């Protein structure tokens, strides 16, 4: 379990994340939702040590994340950010191979190669595995990066808005894969989402942030109701139930 305790981040004098405490439960999909500037991505970055917290601590199975070696941490928690600009030209397979870096430090052994093949297979990228990333569509690129994270084979997978710039088909594809990762491989997924309906349909738990604080934290069905959403987004959002999915109809509210 990842426990976030009283964590804060200040940019200048403004607290972007303000004494947030959250427990991330094992074997579930947890979504971070909230309006723009609520501190979702900042919180995720601090959990994954991309950013240092100004106060508070993050515990991974009750040991302080800061005291873990970077390499050991990378075998247990992976993070994928929304923008992945790089100035090298890589094929999908080369990128996915980087997922094994924490284990092999760049010298791949047979097990690494097996894991890379599996990850590529899992994301349906075999056919294009030797294509260069800059020649791919947004959806393929995103799948390639997720394949890297799968090859990294961590218990925890943190994703910062993985559906950004993807169309409906690819968004659904990626969410289904994340669900499969949790159900079949027993991973724990934490995901920052903008689309409340994806959060509603796919996540087990939702953490809602607003102005750097947690306003709601609980199982999805406790959060997806008009009352809670009003508190989070300041909008009156009617909820429709279809095939046991709760859909938030926010388009004209």
């Amino acid at each position, binding site marked *: 379990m990842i426990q976030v305790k009283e964590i804060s981040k200040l940019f200048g004098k403004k607290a972007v994340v303000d004494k947030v405490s959250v427990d991330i439960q094992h074997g579930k999909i947890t979504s971070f939702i909230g309006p723009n500037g609520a501190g979702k991505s900042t919180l995720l970055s601090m959990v994954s040590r*991309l950013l240092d917290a100004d106060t508070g601590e993050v515990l991974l199975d009750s040991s302080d994340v800061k005291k873990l070696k970077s390499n050991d941490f990378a075998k247990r928690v*992976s993070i994928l950010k929304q923008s992945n600009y790089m100035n090298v*030209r890589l094929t999908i397979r080369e990128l996915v191979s980087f997922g094994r870096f924490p284990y092999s430090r*760049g*010298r791949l052994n047979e097990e690494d190669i097996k894991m890379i093949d599996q990850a590529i297979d899992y994301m349906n990228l075999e056919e294009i595995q030797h294509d260069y990333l800059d020649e791919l569509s947004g959806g393929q690129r995103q799948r390639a990066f997720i394949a890297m994270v799968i090859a*990294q084979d961590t218990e925890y997978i943190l994703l910062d808005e993985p559906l950004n710039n993807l169309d409906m088909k690819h968004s659904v594809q990626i969410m289904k894969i994340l669900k499969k990762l949790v159900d079949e491989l027993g991973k724990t997924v934490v995901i920052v989402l903008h689309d409340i309906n994806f959060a509603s349909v796919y996540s087990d738990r939702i953490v809602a942030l607003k102005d750097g604080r947690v306003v709601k934290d609980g199982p999805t069905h406790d959060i997806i109701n008009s009352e809670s959403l009003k508190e989070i987004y300041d909008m009156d959002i009617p909820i429709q139930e279809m095939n046991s999915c709760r859909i938030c109809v926010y388009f004209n509210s």
Partner: protein
Amino acid sequence: MRNSTKMILLAALAVVFCGLYLFQGLNGSYDYALPRRGIKVLAMVITGVAIAYSTVVFQTITHNRILTPSIMGLDSLYLLLQTVIIFFLGSGHIAVINAKVNFVLSLAIMVVFALLLYKFLFRSGKRPIYFLLLVGIILGTLLGSITTFLGVLIDPNEFMRVQDKMFASFNNVNGDLVWFALIIVVLTMAYGWRMVRDLDVLSLGRDNAINLGVPYDKIVKRMLVISSILIATSTALVGPITFFGLIVANLSYQFFKTYKHTVLITGAGLMSLVALIGGQWIVERVFTFSTTLSVIINFAGGVYFIYLLLRESRSA
């Protein structure tokens, strides 16, 4: 063509130029000319490899392929130092005449300057590396302006001595210093080589590097120090020539088309050897010393740099 084939070809070319430079027109002067040429070749190997190594490393940690470590102002500091010595102590002083004293003094001051700069800038927590570059540029310009100012005031005859130092030259390298520089460069590169695979990951960007368990800030700091020591050593040995690194690093990226720094650095190093030794051979035997190598390098480098800028702006 496979990358290993390309590497062998490059190595062969370097060896050929090396052989040509050492043995062509020797006329049996094994006792006199050969050791002198040997020292020069060694100096070119040290400088070439050190600059190639530090430039590739520097470009990876700054995520920028048109920067060279000279942006940190070490070259300017070297020139200022030479000017100040001659300005205040005169060209007859031991720090000017004695190459060893000059070398140790220059090297020590450049390394101390770089370390103080990094210490000062990294002390106050997380600053983006671009801040460091900006400070480097500003300091470099400041030092350069002071050099020009002193150059205006200085006695014209003395200024000739300063001018000698402004361009890299392999023609009067001190034999003992070459061995000393070799030890420094080999030790520094060996230390850096242990992290060469981390560099591959750094080229994926900071976030991905941290995700993959590379202690980003630590590696970047170490690499900056390594790169500065290499640059300081080569500058103290032959003079400022860092622009050259830009050419070989980019040629190596184009030629090998890989992300692997083991290949990129080795390739850039071999290209340095070909360019320096081959270039020096042409300067000495074809142009019969009517020009210096660094003039040719700066000319070719400038043309290539403009080409890179045009290409980058098209792809952006």
